[in-house]
C-alpha cells in the first residue's frame, strides 16, 4: 500500500531528479520556464560570463510586460531605461534561441496570462518564473513557483532547481457565493484570516465546493494571490473545468497525447486520506465583497465594515503595522469603508485581467457613466484578451463609460511604465499588492474585485454591485425577492 499523498506531493515526486541527502535540497526538474524583461538581464549575463548555453530553449518562453507602455505601442518606448531593458530581452532571446512575444504580437502580455492562454500551463507540470505571482499557474494543478534572478539563471542553465521541502495547507471553501461575490473576495478573505505571512513555507491547496464551482479564471485569481499570504505556491486539483479550458489551445496535447495526459491528470488530486500539515476553512455562503484598508493584502475587511482601530489588534506588531498603514492611507479608524472616495480605478493585472474579468467589469458599467473626477483605466492582460474583448464590444462599453481602454501589460499594478498614481491619490485596484508606493510614489491602493472596481467607478466611493440601484446583483432588485 502506498502512503496517501497530496496533489503537491505527487507533482513534486514526479519531478524529482535527485533526492537531497545530508540536508541538501531535492533537485526538481522544471517543465516550463517563463521569462520577462525585468528579472532576466542579469541571469543571461551570468550565462554569458560562464559560457553556458540555455539547456532547454524548447521549455522556455519570454514576453514583454512589466515595462511596456499601454498607449502608442507602435512608437519607440519613451523611457530610455525601459527601452534598454526590453531591447536587452530581445537581444538575449535572439542570442540564446528563446521564443519571445514582443510588443505588437498577439501573444504578448502579462507573463501569467500568456502561459495559460497558449495552453502551456498544464496540470501536473512544474512552472517557474522570475516573478512572485507565478503561483497563478497552480490553478491548473501545476506546481508553480516564483523565483529570483539567480534561480532564473540556474533554470536557464540546468532546467532544474534545488528546492527545499515544503509543508501543505488545505484551504477549504465550502458553500455557494452570492451574486456579486467573486474569487477575489474569497482570496482576500483567506489572506485576512491567515495573515500576510500565514502561508509561509506552505503550498496551499484550495478545495471545497466553492472552489470546484469556480471557472479557471476565478481559480487563477485565487492562486495568483497565494504569495500575498506568504505561501510558496497555491494549487487547485484539475477537473473537467480545467480540461475544458485547455482542450484545443495551441500547446495543449492532441490526439493520443491528450488521452495519455488526461489519464495522468486524473491521478493528481490529493488522495482522500492524505494528511495536510495545516487546514483552514472559509464559509462561502456568508462571504461579502471584500476590500483592503491597509498596506498589506492581509489588512482587509468586508466592504460593509469599517476601518478597524489599531487597538483592536492583540499582536503588537499587527497594531504598529495598522497604525502605520492608517497614517499612510490617510484613514481614520471607524470610517465606513463605503464612505471612502477614490481618485482612480485600475482594472487589470495578472490577478484580474482575463476575458472573464473584463466581462464582469463590463456587465456592471454597461450603459452607465463613470463618477466625475475618477480616472478609470482598463488594461487587458494580453493582446489576445484585448482583441477578444474588442470582438465582444467591451472596448466600446469601456469608452462610453468614460474609461480608458489600453494595450496589454502590467501597467498600474506596479507603475514601472508611465501608468502611475500621483502622490496622495487613492485607487480601487483589481491588482494584488497594496504596498506603500506600489502603484506610484505616495499612491494609496485598495484591493478589490472587478465587480467592486466597476461599482466604485460608477459611484466614486468604494462600492459593490449591491449598492447599485439597477444591478441584478443587488439583492433588493432580485426578481421575486
Amino acid at each position, binding site marked *: 500500500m502506498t502512503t496517501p499523498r497530496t496533489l503537491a506531493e505527487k507533482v513534486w515526486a514526479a519531478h524529482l*531528479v535527485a533526492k*537531497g541527502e*545530508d*540536508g*541538501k*535540497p531535492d*533537485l526538481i*526538474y522544471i*517543465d*516550463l520556464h517563463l521569462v520577462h524583461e*525585468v*528579472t532576466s538581464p542579469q541571469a543571461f*549575463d551570468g550565462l554569458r560570463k*560562464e559560457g553556458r548555453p540555455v539547456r532547454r*530553449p*524548447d*521549455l522556455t518562453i519570454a514576453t514583454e510586460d512589466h515595462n511596456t507602455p499601454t498607449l502608442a505601442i507602435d512608437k519607440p518606448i519613451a523611457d530610455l*531605461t*525601459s527601452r534598454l*531593458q526590453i531591447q*536587452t530581452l530581445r537581444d538575449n532571446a535572439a542570442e540564446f534561441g528563446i521564443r519571445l512575444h514582443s510588443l505588437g504580437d498577439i501573444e504578448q502580455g502579462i507573463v501569467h496570462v500568456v502561459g495559460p492562454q497558449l495552453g*502551456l500551463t498544464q496540470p501536473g*507540470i512544474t512552472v517557474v518564473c*522570475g516573478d*512572485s505571482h507565478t503561483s497563478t499557474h497552480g490553478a491548473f494543478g501545476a506546481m508553480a513557483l*516564483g*523565483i*529570483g*534572478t*539567480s*534561480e532564473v539563471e*540556474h533554470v536557464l*542553465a*540546468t*532546467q*532544474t532547481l*534545488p528546492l527545499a521541502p515544503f509543508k501543505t495547507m488545505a484551504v477549504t471553501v465550502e458553500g455557494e457565493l452570492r451574486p456579486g461575490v467573486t474569487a477575489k473576495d474569497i482570496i482576500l478573505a483567506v489572506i485576512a484570516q491567515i495573515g*500576510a*505571512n500565514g502561508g*509561509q*513555507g506552505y503550498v496551499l491547496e484550495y478545495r471545497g465546493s466553492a472552489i470546484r464551482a469556480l471557472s479557471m479564471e476565478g481559480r487563477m485569481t485565487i492562486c495568483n494571490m497565494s*504569495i500575498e499570504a*506568504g505561501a510558496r505556491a497555491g494549487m487547485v486539483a484539475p477537473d473537467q473545468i480545467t480540461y475544458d479550458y485547455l482542450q484545443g489551445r*495551441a*500547446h495543449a*496535447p492532441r490526439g493520443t*497525447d491528450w488521452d*495519455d*495526459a488526461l489519464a495522468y491528470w486524473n491521478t493528481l488530486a490529493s488522495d482522500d486520506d492524505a494528511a495536510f500539515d495545516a487546514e483552514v476553512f472559509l464559509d462561502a455562503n456568508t462571504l461579502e465583497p471584500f476590500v483592503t484598508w491597509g498596506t*498589506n493584502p492581509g489588512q482587509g475587511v468586508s466592504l460593509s465594515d469599517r476601518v478597524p482601530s489599531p487597538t483592536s489588534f492583540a499582536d503588537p*506588531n499587527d497594531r*504598529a*503595522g495598522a497604525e502605520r498603514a492608517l497614517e499612510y492611507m490617510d484613514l481614520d479608524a471607524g470610517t465606513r469603508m463605503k464612505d471612502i472616495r477614490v481618485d482612480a480605478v485600475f482594472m487589470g493585472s495578472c490577478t484580474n485581467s482575463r476575458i472573464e474579468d473584463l466581462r464582469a467589469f463590463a456587465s456592471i458599467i454597461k450603459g452607465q457613466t463613470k463618477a466625475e473626477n475618477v480616472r478609470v483605466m482598463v488594461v487587458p492582460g494580453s493582446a489576445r484578451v484585448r482583441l477578444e474583448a474588442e470582438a465582444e464590444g467591451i472596448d466600446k462599453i469601456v469608452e462610453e463609460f468614460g474609461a480608458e481602454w489600453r494595450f496589454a501589460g502590467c501597467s498600474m499594478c*506596479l*507603475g*514601472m511604465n508611465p501608468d502611475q498614481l500621483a502622490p496622495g491619490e487613492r485607487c480601487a485596484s483589481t491588482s494584488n*499588492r497594496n504596498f*506603500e*508606493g506600489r502603484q506610484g*510614489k505616495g499612491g494609496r491602493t485598495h484591493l478589490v474585485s472587478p465587480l467592486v472596481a466597476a461599482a466604485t467607478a460608477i459611484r466614486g466611493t468604494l462600492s459593490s454591485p449591491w449598492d447599485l440601484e439597477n444591478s441584478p446583483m443587488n439583492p433588493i432588485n432580485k426578481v421575486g425577492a
Partner: protein
Amino acid sequence: MEPINVVTGVAVPLERSAVDTDQIIPAEFLKRVTKTGFEDALFFRWRQDSEFVLNREPYNALGPTDSPILVAGPDFGTGSSREHAVWALRDYGFRAVLSHRFGDIFRGNAGKQGLLAAQLSEVDIETIWLIIDAEPGVAASVDLTTKTVTVGKSVFPFEIDDYTRWRLLEGLDDIGLTLRDEPAITAFEARREAWRPTTLPAR
C-alpha cells in the same frame, strides 16, 4: 562567491515589521540591466525622511567597509521576488540581516548572493534593539560556524538551513553544484512523458 565565516560590523536597527521588497527597493530601480550599483536605491522612499535610521547618527556615516548588520522586525523581505532587494542591501554594504522571519523567496535569493539571512527569536531581536538603543553604533558579529550573533557582550543563537550554511561557508556556486548531477538530469529527461508541453516549435 566569497566564502563567509564571520561577519563583523555595526548593528543597524530597522524597527519595522513586514518590510516588503517594494520598500527595500522600489520598482523604478528594476529597470537597470546591471547587477551592481544599487546602493542608492536601498530603502529609497524611506531615505527621503531625515528621521529614517540610515540618515541618523551614527548610521549616516556608515560605508560598505563597515559591513553593517541589519536587525529587522519580523517578515523581512516579503512580497515581490526581485533579487534586486538583495543586491541593494549588499551594494550598500550589508553582509547580514537578522529577523525573526523572512519572505521565502528573499531568503533563497540572499543565500545565493552571499547575504547571510539569520533567523532569531522575536524576543532576541527585541533585546538586540534595546542593546543598540542603549549604545548606538555598537559592533556586532554573526558567526556562521557557531550559528551565533554577538551584540556588545550578549550572545544569541540563530537558525539557518544547513544547506545554505554549508554553501555560504564554502562559497559555492549553485549552478556548478547542480551540474555535478548532470547525468541524473539527462536520465530524467530521457524518461519524461512525450506529451508534456514544449514552447518550440511555436504552434
